[in-house]
């Protein structure tokens, strides 16, 4: 099937053309003599230089280590709480009636709008960033969990009843696996939103992290640093999103046919 393979390669190649063309254009544009008023765009070589520089003085690793950790911590708390809460709201009508209105009211507030308030309460240290990430993770996961539980086919729940499964056994054997595809989607959304709000929080008030690195770069007019930050931020977000989508696809087989 040489033909099929050729087509596949061609498709892959075509996808790369755009970015490659951009790279070429970029390099060419930045080779031209500097315009009066300073450089508009840093060149690719400069970026490489920047990477080396920041690696050498340890800053790059410092920032790279801070942001993901905050994300992980905040996400861990937020998603964990969201899962439990969502399960509760999905399983108990009363819980939904009691907690629902407040839940949806707070959900309406964009996470980023909480930052000033959290800064007033927690100061500008680590805590407020982790809390804001937790907020951004909590709601999509809780929503996904509630919807996930509610859409479990009644047939499976009856299987649970028929074999006497209760409590933890029911959750482990039936509820969680049945909800998993919906949960993963919720987690994907939560990670995306959390990453966004974390970068924003770091730009607003932080001593470290990718957001802060970019903000510093802006203030010191260091294009190359800012561009590097943009690239790293985008790549990290992309990796998170991609891996979750892969997981979703794998789990699709579990979805009831």
């Amino acid at each position, binding site marked *: 099937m040489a033909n099929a393979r050729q087509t596949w390669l061609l498709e892959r190649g075509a996808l790369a053309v755009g970015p490659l063309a951009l790279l070429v254009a970029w390099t060419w544009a930045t080779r031209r003599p500097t315009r009066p008023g300073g450089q508009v765009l840093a060149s690719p070589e400069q970026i490489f230089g920047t990477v080396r520089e920041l690696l050498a003085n340890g800053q790059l690793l410092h920032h790279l280590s801070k942001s993901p950790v905050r994300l992980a911590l905040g996400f861990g708390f937020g998603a964990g709480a969201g899962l439990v809460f969502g399960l509760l709201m999905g399983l108990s009508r009363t819980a939904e009636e009691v907690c629902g209105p407040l839940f949806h009211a707070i959900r309406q507030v964009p996470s980023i709008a909480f930052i000033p308030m959290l800064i007033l309460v927690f100061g500008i240290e680590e805590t407020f960033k982790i809390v804001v990430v937790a907020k951004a993770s909590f709601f999509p996961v809780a929503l996904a969990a509630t919807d996930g539980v509610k859409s479990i086919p009644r047939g499976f729940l009856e299987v649970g009843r028929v074999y006497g499964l209760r409590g933890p056994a029911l959750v482990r054997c039936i509820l969680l696996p049945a909800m998993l595809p919906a949960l993963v989607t919720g987690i994907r959304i939560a990670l995306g939103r959390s990453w966004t709000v974390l970068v924003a929080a770091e730009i607003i008030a932080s001593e470290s992290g990718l957001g802060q690195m970019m903000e510093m770069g802006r203030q010191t007019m260091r294009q190359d640093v800012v561009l590097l930050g943009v690239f790293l931020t985008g790549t990290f977000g992309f990796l998170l999103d991609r891996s979750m989508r892969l997981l979703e696809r794998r789990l699709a*087989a579990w979805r009831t046919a």
Partner: protein
Amino acid sequence: MRQAKVPSSSLPPPAASASRAGEQAGALHIQGVSKSYDLGGRVLPVLESIDLFIPAGQFISIVGQSGCGKSTLLRLLEGLDTGYVGRITLDGAPIVAPGLDRGIVFQDHRLLPWMTLEKNVELALRMRPLPAARKADLVEEYLALVGLQGFEHAYPHQLSGGMAQRAAIARALVNEPKVLLLDEPFGALDALTRIRLQQELQRIWMRSRSTMIMVTHDVAEAVFLSDLVVVMDGKPGRIGRQVRVPYPHSRERGSALLQEIEREILGLLLDQPATPDPSMPSLGAPSVTGGGRLAAVKA
């Protein structure tokens, strides 16, 4: 005699202290059961005054038109639905909730898609305090019983409909229940698979001899498998006739004797007197008389 009508209360109900001889008793006694659904003000009766006694170790089929409540009755026997008038007992003990002394096979196999066959069958044993080794043995034994040895690690979506349903039967049987309930188990399968699985089911029943109660649309299936065919009619559902199939197992599909009974039951269902086929050779049984007698009784 071949087509003796069995009036619903001709057989004596079990004594109050029903003896649980060994593990395999399994006599069901349904007394005066009525059930209706409440739909926003309207009351929809589904079952009306069901009286039925099912002796242990028998294979019973329940046939009837759509909507006559036969599936509802099965769910009551399993304990999935409550809220009815009347009394249902298994060996004297009232049924109020699902229990491991009864097994059920649904029309949609309801194997959990995230578990292998092995795990699915093992799920039935989860609430039993047995050692792991024993559970593994049981799972293996019953998968082999339904002819699925070698497929322990397959996932449901990898199996055909027939295989999945067989796995569901294994799961329902692994607890060695007194009563096996089957709710149109082969309804979603193609004709050939259905026939094959009916033969499988007959074989399994002959081996285990537990009470089996099957709801089905397929009269031929009912007659092939059952000792007694209960015909339900009307909306709401009521017990109509009960037709004995007094032939020994294992049976031949399509034998003339079975076809006679089929015709009779179809006649009941279609509300027409059953007329014997004059082209059928007499097989030593008074077919003409039987038909005539039935026609007379029906009228």
